[in-house]
């Protein structure tokens, strides 16, 4: 039974909800096997991720429509994802390396950015950091593409040190300048997004970065930031926070950074964090809006209208591919704001209402008739809290009960 609770947590938190029968299937496999399949799907013949943006017409002059379609497709792919941990991590990196699709032009480069994050999602952090540094969208967003020998631009250098590697208090203003200089000269071709290093724009003079001398290019910059112990500590801390919650017990992962820094392989870290979570070491936290919506959709709910979805993500404060600033999305607690609460309630109502229409694949009355089964369906294995149970019993099975369930506090805390 303990393991059942752990698996329920795993599916809610990392898997963003359950498809029908999935929790039973997991229970049959056992926690160890489920974690293995999540962490190493290649080893278990799990189908590969397909590019969710593949069939979008990027030449559409209505770029806003291209973006909106991209968001819908990305969410659809998350709902159907055969590799939920990789989807979780893809989204995690889009927050960690926050690039705003409101700034990047052309806007559809964000699709390539997401695909890049996906290709490294559970791979090697050192490779990911290097790839992101010269990713066209990142070069645009943090001005790496206009950072030149003649006119260094500190934007990327600073955020790379503060947000992507060693973190605040572990670098100086001189380090910012050194990192900026060593990364000068990268250019993005506006038409096709091709990236190359232009020697005449690159400052090859040796810099001292984080105490490492002779830093002069991309590879030596990467080597310097990866050599600093704070980088592994920071990445592990971010990962542990995402998986185990904000107030997780740091002693549980104290040994992880040293091992991580030897290879930068993410899988061992993730495996360990999932094991800790399944064993009951996760701290309850707020399910973020994207995860909440995907969770709802996994009930084979009719999808939200585009306008409703746009309003939901905007009011909730988490538009995929559009973090509000370079720091990424707000911490989970922010999604208990009045604005986010309205967003969830209204989308819950809309989803239930849509699902209740004639041509829907599922019948809300049948789905909500047995509240214990409904709770199970969400992975709430102990059933709804008494107050929620009582309130739902007071509503007839159907659209209203489904809406209230989706809007319940029980769903938003995992």
């Amino acid at each position, binding site marked *: 039974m303990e393991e059942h609770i752990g698996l329920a947590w795993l599916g809610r938190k990392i898997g963003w909800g359950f498809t029908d029968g999935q929790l039973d299937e997991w229970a049959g496999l056992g926690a160890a096997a489920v974690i293995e399949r999540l962490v190493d799907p290649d080893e278990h013949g799990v189908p590969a991720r397909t590019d969710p943006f593949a069939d979008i017409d990027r030449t559409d002059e209505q770029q806003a429509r291209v973006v909106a379609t991209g968001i819908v497709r990305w969410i659809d792919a998350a709902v159907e994802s055969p590799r939920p941990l990789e989807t979780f991590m893809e989204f995690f990196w889009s927050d960690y390396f926050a690039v705003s699709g409101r700034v990047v032009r052309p806007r559809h480069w964000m699709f390539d950015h997401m695909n890049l994050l996906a290709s490294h999602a559970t791979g090697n952090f050192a490779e990911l950091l290097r790839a992101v540094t010269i990713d066209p969208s990142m070069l645009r967003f943090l001005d790496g593409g*206009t950072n030149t020998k003649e006119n260094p631009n*500190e934007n990327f250098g600073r955020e790379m040190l503060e947000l992507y590697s060693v973190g605040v208090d572990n670098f100086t203003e001189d380090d910012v300048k050194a990192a900026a200089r060593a990364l000068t000269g990268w250019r993005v071709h506006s038409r096709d997004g091709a990236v190359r290093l232009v020697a005449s724009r690159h400052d090859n003079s040796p810099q001292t970065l984080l105490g490492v001398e002779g830093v002069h290019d991309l590879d030596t910059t990467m080597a310097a930031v990866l050599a600093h112990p704070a980088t592994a500590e920071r990445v592990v801390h971010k990962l542990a926070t995402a998986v185990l919650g904000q107030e997780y017990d740091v002693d549980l992962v104290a040994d992880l950074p040293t091992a991580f820094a030897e290879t930068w392989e993410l899988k061992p870290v993730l495996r360990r964090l999932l094991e800790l979570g399944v064993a009951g070491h996760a701290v309850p936290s707020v399910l973020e809006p994207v995860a909440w919506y995907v969770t709802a959709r996994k009930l084979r709910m009719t999808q939200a209208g585009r306008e409703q979805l746009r309003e939901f993500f905007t009011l909730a404060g988490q538009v995929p591919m559009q973090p509000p600033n*370079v720091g990424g999305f707000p911490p989970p*607690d922010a999604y208990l704001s009045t604005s986010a609460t309205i967003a969830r309630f209204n989308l819950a*109502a809309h989803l239930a209402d849509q699902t209740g229409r004639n041509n829907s694949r599922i019948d809300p009355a049948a789905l909500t008739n047995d509240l214990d089964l409904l709770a199970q369906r969400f992975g709430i294995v102990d059933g709804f809290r008494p107050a929620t149970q009582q*309130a739902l019993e007071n509503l007839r099975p159907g659209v209203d009960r489904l*809406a209230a369930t989706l*809007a319940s*506090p029980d769903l938003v805390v995992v």
Partner: protein
Amino acid sequence: MTMNRRTFLGLSGGVAASGLFGGLALPRNAAALHSFARQSSGTARTLVVVDLQGGNDALNTFVPQSGLYRDLRPTIALPESDLLTFAGLEYGVHPSLASLQSLWDNGQLAALYGTGLQGQGRSHFVAQDAWRTARPGEPARSGWLGRWLEATEPDEEVPLRAIALGQSTLAAQGEQGRPVAIQSVEGFRLNPPRGNDDVTAAVLAMSDPAGRGVMGEAMAAFPQTVEAVIQLQELVADVDVSDNVDQEIDVDGDQALFQATQAIIQGNVGAQILYVTINGFDTHSGQASQQGALLQLVADGLADLFAALETSGHAENTLALVVSEFGRRAAENGSLGTDHGHGGLSFLVGPPVAQSAIIGEPDLGDLADGDLRITIDARSMYDHALRWLGASDEIIVDVLGQEWKGLQLLRL
């Protein structure tokens, strides 16, 4: 469909009687609500903080006459011929700030050059935390406005006393409470399926006042939201907000935030703190168009706001404080932009300002590591603004650690 407040309250009265409402104190009828509105109008003062997130470039906002300015910024210095002149002001004014002219002429605009908190650094997040908590270098979890709100909590709860517009803010976060967050008045409503308030009541009934931890907070979120929605929709329903949103300059739909600010103040909902966050001031490249559009958004927003409040009689009791986490590097960076700097530029706006003035002087010949120095502690502005809101010495010490007297820009 909009929630019908009366049917909803009629229904929730029954829920309240059954005890499921917990500690929720909803006004029982429209008369009580309007009596509450009358009490809170007229006398209550409202502070509107506008936070230019990302670090607004001070030197291209109010341009100093020093020739060093043009030396430091060979390509992004604003052309002399584009600059506006405000009577008696020894700075050139960014052309996008034209709508602030009348506020300046009316003696309602004070600018402070060199604002910040010592040690705030050049990181957005460290500097923002320093400004918002007013406790630089400390891991504070409450903001300066949040602490003031809790220190002066009235006996009868005012649900809309603090409102964050655009995004939530640490500044208005207390040790316990958080501000109501609103994106737009239009979107601030609950739409249950087919308008059926039974669903709203059911979700309300899921709240258990004994709830603790994150689940406790999650349960408290919906009652707080319902209360805020009811009051806001009831009280601002009749406020006529101009709907002349200019798509060209409306960078992220943020004009709606100023319109919401106006509606909330004119609706007399008891709001004392309104915190408006505008993103996008981090102009490392292509600064001219980006900063221009944003400054115009803010200037027009403030000018329209005070014009409307003047007409409705609310202006005398409204003060705007415009802040930004830092100013930008004095020298341009070669990407037609500027990197993170230190000392910044803040404004106090509105009839409570004693006279238009600019204080603090950017010394381009005496930079700190290439940046303007911090010469005016942000907490002296906070002290000033809180006293205008009625804070005593004791409250000031409570909120800001000590008194930060010195500024005399406001009629207290």
